[in-house]
């Protein structure tokens, strides 16, 4: 399967009839409505993968060694990872923009 495409157009007359490839979710970064940002304290994190399992987006990725990385392009700041982390290694911080 090849990479999803994006079609370019100038305006209403040359755009597709339907919302087709207006963009892919690679382009539609959905984190802009985040008010609170989860930050992992890697000193406390003992990579168990629970935050990765619970993240509904999913916006938590696992590195090869199993440690979690938050994908801030898609994390909407729901805080579920903070709630579920058994070591209290994730905390929410006010988003600065």
């Amino acid at each position, binding site marked *: *399967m*090849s*990479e*999803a*495409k994006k*079609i370019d157009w100038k*305006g*209403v007359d040359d*755009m*597709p*009839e*339907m*919302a*087709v*490839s*207006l*963009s*892919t*979710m690679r382009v*539609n970064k*959905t984190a802009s409505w985040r008010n609170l940002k989860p930050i992992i304290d890697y000193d406390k994190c003992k990579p168990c993968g629970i935050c990765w399992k619970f993240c509904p987006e999913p916006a938590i990725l696992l590195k090869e060694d199993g440690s979690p990385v938050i994908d801030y392009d898609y994390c909407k700041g729901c805080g579920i990872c903070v709630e579920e982390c058994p070591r209290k290694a994730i905390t929410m911080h006010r988003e600065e923009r």
Partner: protein
Amino acid sequence: MMKVIMGNHALSYGAKLSRVQVIAAYPITPQTQVVELLSEMCANGELDAKFVKVESEHSAMAASIGASAAGARAFTATSAQGLALMHEMIHWAVGARTPIVLGNINRAMGPPWSIWTEQNDSLSERDTGIMQVYCESNQEVQDTVIQSFKVAEKVLLPCMVVLDAFYLSHTYEPVDIPEQSLVDEYLPPFDPPYKLDPDDPHTFGSLTDAKWYYELRYKIEVAMNKARYEWKKANEEFENIFDRGYGLVEDYKCEDADLILITSGTITGTARITVDILREKGKKVGLLKIRVFRPFPIDEVRDILGSAKKVACIDRNISFGHSGIFFAEVKSALYNLSNRPPIWGYIAGLGGRDVTPESIIEIVKRTEESDKPEELIWIGLKR
């Protein structure tokens, strides 16, 4: 080949002749025979289509959208509460620009439970962007399915073929079922500009913010406007091949008419006979049948009604708190004309009550005798 068939089967034959590839449906009285016959055709190999049994009408439309988005010609059918359950997905079919054809048998909404005809189910879908065509005979039902695919696929909008419960759905009439080769000549295979294809991947209907949503709505209106022309063209081509046709509207003895009746669906046949009866008595009465309701035939309505002295609209539906729905639409179309006729609005036949020539004579008489237009007159109300 002439065959005596019920209105529901006229829908089935229309779909079969259109070589539909996916049928997704859930049974509901009075629609059931439409998909019953199609499922038989699929089972015995007469029709090379996938019949998808679904758990609800919402799913029936959702499956049809998926099929159409993948490039298949999709058909479904329903009635009343079933159509209401499809409502969300009809918006989706329009926005996704999937040219699905939906047969809807007009049935009154409950409660109280009713299985008899009334147009409030289909007219409640007025503002979704689905095209709507109201049929008068079983022949017209079959032919309208074929024409609907032709137009729908040109403008990429779904289309609803509407017929009255029992007066058409379960009434047997002779129908000319054309040769498949002639229909193939008329209706080429469906070939959408974009479709779900793993080798050419696109996202469909994904999150679109205010930057482009507005333009997409505009394009639906452009398509609806184009459909006015496409319906005329589709009908001309149909007439050339099949030697019969139907306009967006039909005007009957309107040219010299002082009073023009407006009807849709099966009340039209009764009204046509009544016009003949009244003409014999020297009354200059005409009839305007509105066949295509969306897109609304504004130009035709203006041209035909512009010269009348009085207009009487018969609605087998009501927008509660306002008036009959065809009445409101016609009145709106006429408003900006400098010379516009006064128009009387009549509610009749709700819940499948008979609308007879006597009812229509009463409507004509009341309109003739009245000096001031009345907008909401209930015909045959028991007091």
